[in-house]
């Protein structure tokens, strides 16, 4: 790979994007403070909040205008997901955005327009022990899965309706997940390689949106820990003046800024130059998973015993992040996908094989 290519490094947001974030942030601070998150209970879903967000146009944002959508870019959706994460909003946005965009490619006219506002679940991985894990599947009435045996032929992309989901449980995670088995009502959207390819793209979108949600959650956790470090005193000084506290906080701030920027770059590249850097999207997702977990662990422990109580807001973010990370499967698989991506880049540039041998002549 040419590491000295002349490319732009423009991470800035457009005026519209800043406006979008500001509107959403105001909305969520009014309608989704931590007590709303808690009130959503173990199910982790607030249907009234979902409806309100639908009125703002969020449910269809990523859909084409013909379906009443705004044709938003994936980068815009990532910005939205980060804001939702920042508020720990109890809504299955990543599932819905990834699944509805996928569905709109196959069924632009099949579903009446109103249905596009109803949340759809998305099966991220191949089926597990109890069927397909749908991260939002405890609160959606339909889901898209890449079916495998015994549900259907390998590589069959299917829309399932009205399954009998078995709740998936991770204590205190507030993840509205469920295991879905094959229902009677299923329609096949694509088969074979096409199904695998289309599902792979949607899975990448789900993972990028979830990475954004995680970084949002971690950012709020960090802000709380910083506030605590300013106001909690030991030996007459705020604990935040101690480098044993301030340097770990500086390190997680660094990781979160890095992770956010990597996520922007990976998303932009996927959208604008798909195939050029297949390593970046899994890299951004694996980095976000680890940086978020580390950040929230630090944020909990900076607050000592108080961070450990269920009353603390940071506990919400800590537990929610763990649920979201689990829903995407082992991030170690993303790490391996990064190297698969490097293989693909290498294969695409046969001429560059041996470019690394320049030092041999030295």
């Amino acid at each position, binding site marked *: 790979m040419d590491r000295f290519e002349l490319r732009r490094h423009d991470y800035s947001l457009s005026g519209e994007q800043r406006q979008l974030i500001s509107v959403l942030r105001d909305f969520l601070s009014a309608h989704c403070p931590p007590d709303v998150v808690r009130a959503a209970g173990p199910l982790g879903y607030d249907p009234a909040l979902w409806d309100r967000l639908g009125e703002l146009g969020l449910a269809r944002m990523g859909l084409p205008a013909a379906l009443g959508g705004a044709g938003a870019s994936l980068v815009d959706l990532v910005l939205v997901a980060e804001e939702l994460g920042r508020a720990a909003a109890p809504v299955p946005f990543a599932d819905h955005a990834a699944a509805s965009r996928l569905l709109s490619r196959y069924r632009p006219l099949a579903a009446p327009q109103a249905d596009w506002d109803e949340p759809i679940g998305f099966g991220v991985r191949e089926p597990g022990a109890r069927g397909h894990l749908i991260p939002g599947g405890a609160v959606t009435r339909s889901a898209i899965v890449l079916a495998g045996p015994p549900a259907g032929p390998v590589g069959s992309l299917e829309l399932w309706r009205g399954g009998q989901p078995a709740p998936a449980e991770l204590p205190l995670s507030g993840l509205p997940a469920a295991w879905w088995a094959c229902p009677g009502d299923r329609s096949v959207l694509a088969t074979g390689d096409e199904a695998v390819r289309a599902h792979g793209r949607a899975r990448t979108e789900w993972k990028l949106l979830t990475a954004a949600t995680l970084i949002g959650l971690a950012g709020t956790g960090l802000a709380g820990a910083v506030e605590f470090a300013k106001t909690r005193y030991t030996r007459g000084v705020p604990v935040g003046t101690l480098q044993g506290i301030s340097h770990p906080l500086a390190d997680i701030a660094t990781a979160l800024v890095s992770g956010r920027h990597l996520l922007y770059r990976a998303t932009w590249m996927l959208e604008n130059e798909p195939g050029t850097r297949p390593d970046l999207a899994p890299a951004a997702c694996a980095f976000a998973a680890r940086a978020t977990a580390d950040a929230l662990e630090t944020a909990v422990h900076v607050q000592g015993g108080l961070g450990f109580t269920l009353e603390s807001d940071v506990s919400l973010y800590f537990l929610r992040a763990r649920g979201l990370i689990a829903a995407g499967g082992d991030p170690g698989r993303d790490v391996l996908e990064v190297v698969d991506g490097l*293989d693909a880049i290498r294969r695409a540039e046969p001429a560059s094989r041996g470019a690394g041998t320049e030092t041999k002549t030295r």
Partner: protein
Amino acid sequence: MDFSKVALDDGQAAFAREVGEFFAARVTPDVLDAEERSGDGFCEPLHLAMGERGWLLDTWPETDGGAGLGPVEHRLLVLGKERTGLPFITLDTTRLVAEAVRRHAPEESRRRLMLDAARGTVRFCLGYTEPEGGSDVAAAATRAVRDGDGWVVDGAKMFTTGAHNCQYAFTITRTNPGVRKHKGLTMLLVPLDAPGVSVSPVRTFGGERTNIVYFGGVRVPDSLRIGPVDGGWGVLHDRLDVEHGLGADAAALALDPPSVRTGYATLLARCVDAVHEWSLGDDGRAVAADDLRYRLGRVAIEAEAALSAPGHYGRVAASRALIDGTARLMELLGQDVLLGAEGPAAVPLAERAHRFAQGTAIYGGTLEVFRNIIAEQDLKLPRPSYPA
């Protein structure tokens, strides 16, 4: 947001070829070997050849000795330099000081110093750190005392990299010990051939040769004072990077990497690519076991995150990624590390990077200094109160 490749017009494409050919012809295996042995971060013939083209202070107008390059051509030149793998330490310090000269030197010396720096016959090193001082450069104890129309300098400066190839050290001196430490500093260009100057080599295990420079009653004319008396801190904190001088139009093109230390992350990414190459079979297929690929992937991820990190976050992220990542790559290479230069290409590259990495925790201030900056400026954590 935009990460696209920059489309070059015909003139720019021709310039890119010229840059490629220039460095390919001059950065020979002998030049690389000589740098490897000397650790100088400097190659005089290359430096002078660049000066002949105005490529040392490339964005300065031709009348000042530059080449009047626009932002795209400037970036092409920077990338061409970086691609050689050579360290350009003395060029970098010369550019920084030349910009300070352009802005702050007195009329009588300014023009000559600018032209000679641009031509390459005058080089500048930095005289900031002191043996007792570390990163707290404002605590400088090197004294400069008024003597007629000049100054007499006594003290010592550490990590004056390139001093043995330079004509002047851009030196922080204390001219007023009676005021708070930031207020009593003055910047002087101390001639390195003046009586009373001695330069002793200091080798680092990163392969670099740096120096300690002693000043014993060194006389410096006032025409080599850069900026106001007792106003040295302001000169140091002026944005001296030449890129900054390209202005807002250039900034809008967003051609610069997100941090001035992104290069450390680029070096790690090159090491990742080389170890990836090493891990493949002869026909380029993936043969390495999943655990090895997983560990390589983790380093690749850290490199990409550091490549994206902005500003002083990037300073911390890139250095940490390089230090940790190269250690992990050395583990991956296993006993092949002991094959040295005869081994696969990844070995000498990663091995050198691993040693070099340790110094990156210090350059331009330690990582702890930058963590303090992030804590205080970005997170708004309260500033600790220390006795001095």
